[in-house]
């Protein structure tokens, strides 16, 4: 038997695959034929040969099936390998193409890195602030934050978070809307006494607060409901995780230890999990039971005390009620209770807001416009900044698309050639998209690297008190960035694709590189215009914020925040009784006033921008006064108050020592209070009643005579009108609140920090086992108020400048490219007698023709957004002309600057060389 050997030719079949069955059949057929031939050679008859062959083969159908199965698997594997191979090939060639044009590629990556980095950072922050409930708080949809929607003629609709204790009780027991209601309040307290006293952020919470939020203690437990009693002699406390680590070194034996928080002694029963700060994002240190501690922090009658709105409430809606039904029931109860108590909240309604701030009252738009109280001011600014970041990313994408367009124009011949050689348009599209996606991916990876430092920076400037894990690259952030990468990659890659689609292949092949390839692409123009418009928009925003900031800075607050400080010592448990309390403060004031570094010192009940005390007022002859969103405020002060604060009495007089308990009742009222109580009249000499007890008739308290009118002050909020406030002499205070602070003014020429140290030392040395003495400049709460505008100005400014730079560079590259294409034409012009200046002016004209429409469009966009932005500004109209003009000039200047380089180069073209070039 000959051994079949030697293959004469191996034919390679083309790429078209033959079906597997055909191949198997052919192979088996060959084998059969060969076997039959063998048997025939041995002398069998054809039938016998065939039978033998069949016998020797075995079960043909089975074999065929098996072979088919094996081959299908092999085939699939091979196809997959081919696809991967093709992909790798595409990636390699894409990378090669990108590397060839290194400058453009790097610029694109850098631009995208900035754009996507900004967005990723903002998303991380916004996600934490607005899109999720606070850490460790459950996502139960029945869980809601309670808001009170108040309305006033002057202030419109306002959403407040606080209610009084009776209000909370009413919601809990009488409304029938909730299966559980909890209340909490945060304050500053002293841990320990004497020299080792530490300032802590303490939270008072009802026992059901923690189980309602769904948080589990890291160590030990939270409070039980029978520990949350008023008369609990051994109340529990729970430490926050951070505080436990900082203060107690994460001592595992912490449970059972006793700590003193202000006046109370508490036993530590648990430690909260890391990151838990209650229902808000402010860092907390320790929680104590509400009912056990409240009396110490407010007053003995807190359970029925309507005048103080201090509690924040969270509630679990009954699951058989819709949110609207629950809110309606709660509102009905609340209004009834307020009406019976004759409080100004009788027209307010209760709203249930999701624990996720973005889905809170009025949702995201509420957060953005600031109408709802659901987002803190920081959250609001963050939300706006994310929009800004998205705009910058849009600009960056537009720029990238533009650059890729330019590059595609340059590669027209190459693309046309490949099309002619048979590459399918789909393949071409895939390759171009691959290039842009690679760029986007590299930009995205770089962006992720930017996130931690950027978040850290933002946390230091923007987020201040908020407790947010900085720049953690969690899954949502990475997914978000991935999505950005895809969107950017596709968007930026599609633009050149559109161009290549409209290409007539032969036309492109014939044309020289210069001719026809730079038709004024409408797409490119649009992109440039868009960039200009968006830069304009951002810079207008920046300008408006800057002006707001300047207005705020120039505000005469009515007190001098940089020279005046507030000193606070918690005397509960140190002094017993009213006498001792007053005695302490009198001595404190004397000693402090006598310090050489002190200019003046005075006592006060409330601190500007930090605390507020309000009591209703009745004016004889007027039935009722219009309700106010906040106020009317009252403060009881010692005679030196106005001098210490730097508050001017514009008419009448201040207080003297003669205005004591036995003398006639007098007051000094603020400018806006005068207008509130006695509109259109001269308030000096008029009198009014302070409503201390709602159950007694309005005129049961003495009629307080106005002896002085102070300047407009901003002691309670930075609203443009100033706060309606009245000042009464301390001895004549309508209520004996054990709440006192010392206002201290640093002497002229003495640095306030020195004064603060002296004051602190003096107070601590007044003996009697005092808790920590807190001395703070009044600038601190002021800064807190102005920070949003500062931030808006900084961030809009930064982003605006960034956007402008990106747009300007985009303009530069476009003009440069265009002018390079027209070198031939410029050569001709110069040969025909044009001067350098003429050519240069032509180029500048091109730049303007791109810039002007952008400017106009940007103005249009800015005008559209005015209403939304109005509440964020201070004393500035969103249509402020100075800002618009300034920004327009900047934009034009930038455009001209961008075009100068190309303009000068165009002028210096050697006409002969240009003409000779193809």
């Amino acid at each position: 038997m000959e051994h079949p050997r030697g293959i004469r030719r191996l034919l390679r079949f083309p790429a078209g695959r033959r079906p597997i069955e055909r191949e198997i059949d052919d192979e088996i057929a060959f084998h059969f034929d060969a076997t039959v031939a063998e048997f025939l050679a041995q002398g069998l008859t054809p039938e016998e040969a065939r039978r033998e062959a069949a016998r020797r083969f075995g079960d043909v159908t089975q074999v065929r099936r098996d072979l088919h199965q094996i081959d299908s698997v092999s085939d699939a594997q091979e196809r997959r390998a081919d696809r991967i191979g093709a992909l790798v090939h595409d990636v390699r060639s894409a990378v090669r193409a990108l590397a060839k044009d290194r400058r453009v590629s790097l610029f694109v990556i850098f631009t995208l890195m900035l754009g996507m980095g900004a967005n990723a950072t903002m998303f991380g922050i916004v996600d934490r602030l607005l899109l999720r409930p606070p850490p460790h708080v459950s996502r139960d949809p029945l869980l809601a934050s309670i808001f009170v929607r108040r309305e006033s003629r002057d202030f419109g609709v306002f959403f407040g978070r606080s209610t009084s204790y009776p209000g909370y009780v009413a919601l809990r027991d009488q409304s029938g809307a909730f299966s559980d209601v909890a209340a909490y309040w945060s304050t500053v307290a002293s841990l320990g006494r004497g020299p080792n006293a530490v300032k802590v952020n303490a939270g008072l919470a009802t026992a059901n607060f923690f189980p309602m939020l769904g948080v589990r203690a890291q160590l030990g437990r939270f409070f039980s409901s029978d520990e949350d009693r008023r008369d609990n002699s051994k109340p529990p406390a729970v430490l926050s995780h951070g505080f436990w680590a900082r203060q107690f070194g994460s001592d595992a034996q912490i449970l059972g230890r006793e700590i003193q928080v202000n006046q109370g002694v508490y036993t530590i029963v648990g430690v909260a999990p890391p990151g838990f700060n209650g229902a808000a994002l402010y860092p907390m240190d320790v929680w104590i039971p509400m009912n056990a501690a409240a009396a110490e922090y407010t007053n003995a009658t807190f359970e029925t005390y309507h005048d103080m709105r201090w509690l924040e409430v969270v509630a679990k809606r009954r699951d058989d009620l819709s949110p609207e039904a629950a809110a309606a029931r709660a509102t009905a109860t609340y209004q009834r209770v307020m009406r019976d108590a004759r409080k100004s909240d009788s027209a307010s309604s209760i709203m249930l807001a999701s624990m996720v701030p973005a889905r809170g009252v009025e949702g995201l738009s509420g957060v953005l416009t600031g109408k709802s109280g659901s987002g803190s001011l920081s959250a609001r600014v963050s939300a706006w900044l994310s929009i800004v970041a998205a705009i910058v990313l849009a600009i960056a994408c537009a720029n990238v698309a533009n650059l890729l367009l330019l590059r595609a124009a340059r590669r027209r011949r190459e693309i046309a050639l490949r099309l002619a050689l048979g590459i399918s348009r789909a393949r071409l599209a895939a390759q171009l998209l691959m290039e842009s996606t690679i760029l986007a991916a590299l930009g995205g990876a770089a962006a992720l690297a930017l996130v931690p430092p950027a978040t850290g920076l933002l946390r230091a400037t923007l987020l201040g008190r908020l407790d947010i894990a900085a720049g953690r690259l969690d899954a949502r952030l990475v997914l978000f960035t991935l999505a950005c990468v895809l969107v950017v990659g596709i968007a930026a890659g599609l633009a050149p694709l559109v161009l290549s689609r409209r290409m007539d292949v032969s036309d492109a092949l014939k044309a020289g590189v210069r001719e026809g390839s730079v038709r004024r692409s409408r797409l490119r123009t649009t992109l440039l215009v868009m960039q200009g418009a968006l830069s304009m928009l951002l810079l207008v925003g920046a300008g408006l914020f800057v002006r707001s900031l300047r207005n705020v800075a120039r505000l005469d607050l009515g007190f001098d925040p940089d020279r005046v400080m507030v000193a606070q010592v918690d005397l509960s448990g140190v002094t017993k009784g009213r006498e001792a309390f007053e005695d302490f403060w009198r001595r404190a004031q004397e000693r402090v006033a006598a310090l050489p570094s002190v200019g003046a010192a005075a006592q006060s009940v409330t601190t500007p921008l930090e605390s507020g005390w309000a009591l209703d007022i009745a004016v004889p002859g007027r039935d009722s006064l219009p309700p106010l969103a906040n106020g009317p405020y009252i403060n009881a002060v010692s005679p030196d108050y106005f001098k210490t604060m730097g508050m001017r009495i514009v008419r009448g007089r201040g207080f003297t020592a003669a205005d004591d308990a036995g003398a006639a009742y007098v007051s000094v009222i603020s400018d806006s209070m005068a207008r509130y109580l006695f509109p259109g009249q001269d308030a000096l000499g008029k009198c009014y009643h302070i409503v201390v007890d709602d159950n007694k008739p309005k005129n049961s308290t003495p009629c307080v005579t106005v002896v002085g009118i102070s300047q407009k002050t901003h002691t309670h909020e930075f609203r443009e009108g100033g706060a309606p406030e009245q000042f009464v002499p301390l001895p004549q205070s309508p209520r004996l609140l054990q709440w006192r602070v010392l206002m201290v003014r640093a002497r002229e020429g003495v640095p306030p920090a020195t004064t603060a140290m002296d004051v602190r030392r003096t107070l601590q040395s007044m003996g009697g086992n005092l808790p920590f003495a807190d001395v703070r400049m009044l600038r601190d709460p002021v800064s807190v108020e102005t920070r949003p505008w500062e931030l808006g100005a900084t961030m809009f400014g930064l982003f605006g400048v960034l956007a402008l730079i990106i747009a300007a560079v985009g303009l530069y590259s476009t003009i440069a490219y265009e002018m390079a294409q027209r070198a031939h034409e410029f050569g001709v012009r110069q040969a025909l007698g044009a001067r350098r200046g003429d050519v240069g002016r032509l180029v500048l004209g091109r730049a303007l023709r791109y810039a002007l429409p952008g400017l106009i469009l940007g103005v249009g966009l800015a005008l559209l957004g005015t209403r939304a932005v109005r509440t964020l500004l201070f004393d500035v109209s969103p249509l402020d002309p100075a800002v618009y003009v300034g920004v327009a000039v900047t934009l034009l200047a930038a455009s001209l600057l961008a075009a100068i380089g190309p303009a000068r180069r165009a002028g210096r073209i050697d006409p002969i060389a240009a003409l000779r070039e193809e």
Partner: protein
Amino acid sequence: MPDQPLELLQGTLDVLILKTLTWGPTHGYGVAHSIRQKTADELRIDDGALYTSLHRLEQRKWVRSEWGVTDQNRRAKFYSLTKQGRAALVARTEQWTRYATAVSRVLQPA
């Protein structure tokens, strides 16, 4: 000619095929013929099983196949050894030798 050819033990066919292919690329029929000749028909080879083996070997990338033309100008699928196949053959051969040695040691007359 033996009266009854021996049944193949598991996995033997693969080794035989691999070894056969070391003498040059062949088609399936050629492999079968070669094996029968070498073993003087002692072993029973089902052609169907042979092809199944060949295709499996191809799936494992131990052999590769190519359609070609024989001396008689007929289209046939030719198989050849890959590098991995050669390595596998060495390993399997050694394994087989050890196996056979061990068994025959037991079976040897005392």
